[in-house]
């Protein structure tokens, strides 16, 4: 089978395998076949203008779901079993064969694939078994909580008790790039990793060989309250297989690898929210990195319901970058970011709403040599190093948004401003969408944005953009849509982007 035929073959196989589930086989089953396809045509130019790559992208997904496999659709409190899967083909026909050929060292871009196919998710889910106590998922699935977006292949079991809490445990293999039907999206940051098949050991030794990554986790979660929720979660992932530790292919060192099972990530997270309908609500959460022994993220938000229409809020966010435990960047000095924001949201009418906010960020700054015993400069220069007096580097910003929605349409505006020592950005977008006669979709967007890059003043620009789109609803949840984007600024000159969309859904 040629590589080019793989996507079609896999999609066809998926549909074929699921054919027994579609209607006709049983009346109460609720099948659903959906597909979203987009074609994008635009050019990307390097910041210095020399290199231009043509993006000719085609992305299509095909999803198949079958609900109510137990054939008890009228009992929403009884057991339910469903199957959901979605595959994706994401091609860039603007890429060249040289970019994916490891036999061409001067042109290959490690990790780049011209037409990868991945299984976004594919699982069987059971809910409310054993009188509501047992739920489970088996297959490729997402986990979304205070530890972020994550995906693995395996099983998850959830026990929901009548005592207002549930416990959850899961285990399997983390989804990793370069593995069959997988993307690297859900791995921890900091490691350039993928399929090294066909690579000479000295070619891009920093590009690490992928291998399976056993993972497991657990969660304790509240259940049943409508005004309170909390989830305590733990996750651990291990790296396995060989890893290059000598990254100099230029002869400074001979390639050396380290092999063995070692930690990739181990983190604890907690998230909660509570709401009193007449007063307001609070939300908060954290992610603690056990490997780095530090908080990676802390956040909190307080909303006060000043009136039936007005909500006032204070948001706080603390963030420090953390990486896969294979990465050297965990060991680099990284200062925390502290954000404090205030915002208001006003529902002027049932159709018109406004939101506005302002925020301040304090970057941590090193004010003295961190390594007295191990000078930062081995050549006797540390005393010459410059350190600011203030430990805080401040930046500010704000946003304003409005939205008016009516029958089958909406118009709105969104603006944003960010001002810092090393750059600033300010702009506004106006947008609108209207469906006519339930089938014809019109869409438009226009905006002006200005940005200043203090480190590269030649990259400053004021940019105007407009987008116009028109579509036709074929039937419910199915749409064909075309849009045209035109950007104008002194860096890009005149740039155009064309897009075609086709969304289709077929249900019983």
């Amino acid at each position, binding site marked *: 089978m040629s590589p080019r035929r793989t996507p079609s073959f896999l999609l066809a196989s998926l549909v074929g395998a699921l054919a027994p589930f579609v209607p006709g086989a049983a009346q109460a089953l609720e099948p659903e076949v959906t597909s979203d396809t987009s074609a994008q045509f635009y050019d990307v130019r390097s910041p210095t203008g020399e290199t231009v790559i043509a993006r000719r992208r085609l992305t299509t997904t095909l999803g198949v779901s079958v609900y109510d496999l137990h054939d008890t659709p009228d009992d929403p409190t009884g057991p339910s079993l469903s199957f959901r899967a979605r595959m994706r083909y994401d091609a860039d026909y603007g890429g060249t064969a040289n970019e994916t050929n490891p036999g061409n060292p001067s042109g290959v871009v490690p990790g*780049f694939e011209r037409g990868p196919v991945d299984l976004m998710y594919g699982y069987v889910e059971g809910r409310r078994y054993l009188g509501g106590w047992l739920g489970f998922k088996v297959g490729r699935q997402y986990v979304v909580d205070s530890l972020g*977006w994550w995906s693995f292949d395996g099983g998850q079991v959830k026990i929901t008790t009548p005592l207002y809490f549930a416990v959850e445990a899961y285990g399997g293999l983390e989804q990793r790039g370069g593995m069959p039907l997988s993307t*690297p999206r859900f791995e921890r940051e900091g490691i350039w990793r993928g399929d090294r098949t066909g690579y000479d050991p000295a070619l891009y030794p*920093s590009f690490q060989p992928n291998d399976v990554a056993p993972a497991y986790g657990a969660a304790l979660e509240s259940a049943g*309250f409508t005004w309170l929720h909390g989830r305590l979660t733990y996750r651990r992932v291990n790296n396995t297989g060989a890893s290059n530790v000598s990254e100099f292919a230029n002869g400074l060192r001979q390639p050396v690898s380290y092999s063995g099972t070692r930690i990739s990530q181990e983190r604890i997270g907690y998230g909660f929210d509570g709401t009193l309908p007449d007063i307001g609500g609070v939300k908060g959460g954290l992610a603690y990195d056990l490997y780095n022994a530090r908080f990676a993220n802390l956040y909190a*938000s307080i909303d006060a319901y000043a009136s039936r229409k007005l909500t006032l809020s204070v948001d706080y966010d603390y963030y420090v970058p953390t990486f896969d435990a294979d990465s050297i960047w965990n*060991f680099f000095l990284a200062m925390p970011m502290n954000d404090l924001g205030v915002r208001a*949201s006003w529902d002027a009418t049932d159709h018109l709403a406004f939101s506005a906010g302002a925020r301040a960020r304090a970057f941590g700054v090193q004010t003295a040599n961190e390594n007295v015993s191990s000078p930062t400069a081995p050549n006797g220069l540390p005393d010459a190093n410059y350190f600011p007096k203030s430990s805080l580097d401040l930046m500010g910003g704000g946003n304003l948004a409005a939205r008016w929605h009516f029958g089958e349409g909406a118009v709105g505006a969104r603006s944003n401003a960010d001002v810092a020592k090393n750059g600033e950005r300010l702009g506004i977008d106006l947008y609108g969408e209207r469906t006519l006669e339930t089938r014809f979709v019109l869409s438009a967007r226009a905006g002006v944005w200005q940005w200043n890059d203090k480190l590269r003043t030649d990259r400053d620009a004021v940019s105007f953009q407009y*987008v116009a789109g028109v579509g036709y609803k074929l039937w419910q949840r199915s749409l064909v849509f075309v849009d045209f984007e035109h950007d104008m600024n002194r860096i890009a000159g005149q740039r155009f982007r064309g897009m075609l969309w086709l969304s289709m859904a*077929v249900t019983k």
Partner: protein
Amino acid sequence: MTTKQGKSVGAIAYLVLVVALVLAACTAFAQDPPADGAPAPSTEDADAGAVEPAPPQPAPPPAPPATAAEEAQAWFTGVDVSSGQSPLPNNGPMPLKLLPPGAFEQDRGPSAAIFPPQKLTLRFNHKFHVEQQKLQCKTCHVGAITSESVNDRLTPKGTTCDSCHGTTHDDLSRVTPGSDASGKCNFCHLGYKEGDGNLVAKFDIPRPNMVFNHKKHAVRNINCQQCHGDVQELELATRDQMPRMRGCFGCHQHPDAAARGEAKATCETCHVKGGGQEGGRIKTAFPTGAMQPPRWLHNSQHTPDFVQRHKYVAANDSQFCANCHKEEFCTACHDGRVRPRNIHPNDYLNMHAVEGRLATQKCTSCHREQSFCLGCHQRVGVSMSGPVKDSGRFHPPKSEWSDPPRRPGHHSFEANRNLNACVSCHIERDCVICHGGKGIGGGFNPHSGSFVAGCSTQFKRNPRPCYVCHDPGAAVLQRCK
């Protein structure tokens, strides 16, 4: 066939296959396109409507208080024909205590997506019928205690009124008025004038877009007021008396739960199953509007800035989001392949470097830097280690950016402030050249001052990154062993 032609043929073949598969599936499930989810009209709707087909008319505004002349013209002495046109006399303000449980002061009424707007073209005084005529709710709403579906029409038919009003509604094409004033057509039918014959304004209470079983509630002795409020204190009952979701939660728990009394429920217990425009377990888009979570429900109101703040909800309880959104709705951004313009506006390709440096949005929320960002940067040459070498220098001059000693504008400040920005273009090797231990790199120590205190634990759990910069036998590494 050339390679290029082969690619094209392959692409076309793939396209044809995908389209064929989808079209085949379409054929298998072929159905007439409904009018965007609008429910099919029921015969009972027709019964409750005009005697003869009449174009929909807006409900007439509440009539002003009857004048003396009008009262004089009233055929039925003692009856105020201005009553029953609004919930309270003279359209007075509705006190919270009369609204259904869960309603708020200055409530705007229930969701139009669930309870579509109604056209009430009848005058009716509930209070009069309950207090003075001693009627019960079920006297007129006969089917309410046995109804098992929202498709059941529970408003009384005209024949229900006949026994007291002397009218005959058996044949809606030949309705016979009663002999006294209370039996005249315009006694109840608003806007009816002498000479209109058998034509009255259409009365329309659309079926709610939900699931509800009155019988299940009635057999548990849940009375009408527990869901509809004190209708017996009102003249005209409007949409405002429809139940509020917050009131339902008085008995029902909303997520999956183990046995917890008889009111355990899932979303599908009350909401219509099936994906809407955006998928999900329940249908959220209806011709009369889209369902949106109320402010009081997990503080998750979808305000115009919700895209910037939704993490507070999603990170705490993603299952709550999954009630209305399927995975692909979230992954359209969080694992997306098409730039969402509401998040990355305008010429974001040229703008994103500034935003990445400011970290106003966390790139890692949706992108993995060592794959998504690095791959593209290497293709266009914004990288030290990629195959494209003809791009110019991205950073300020080396003498300012990376040469020691550290001065204002030095890259170390940028790295300390936002290390993620470095990781989006550079690979480990780029940093090790200078920051690796002596003999491997330049010996410029990147560690924090407290690093040595915790490095032994990290070394035990994963020594790999240590070996990237230090030889296994290096003396400096012994401090972490």
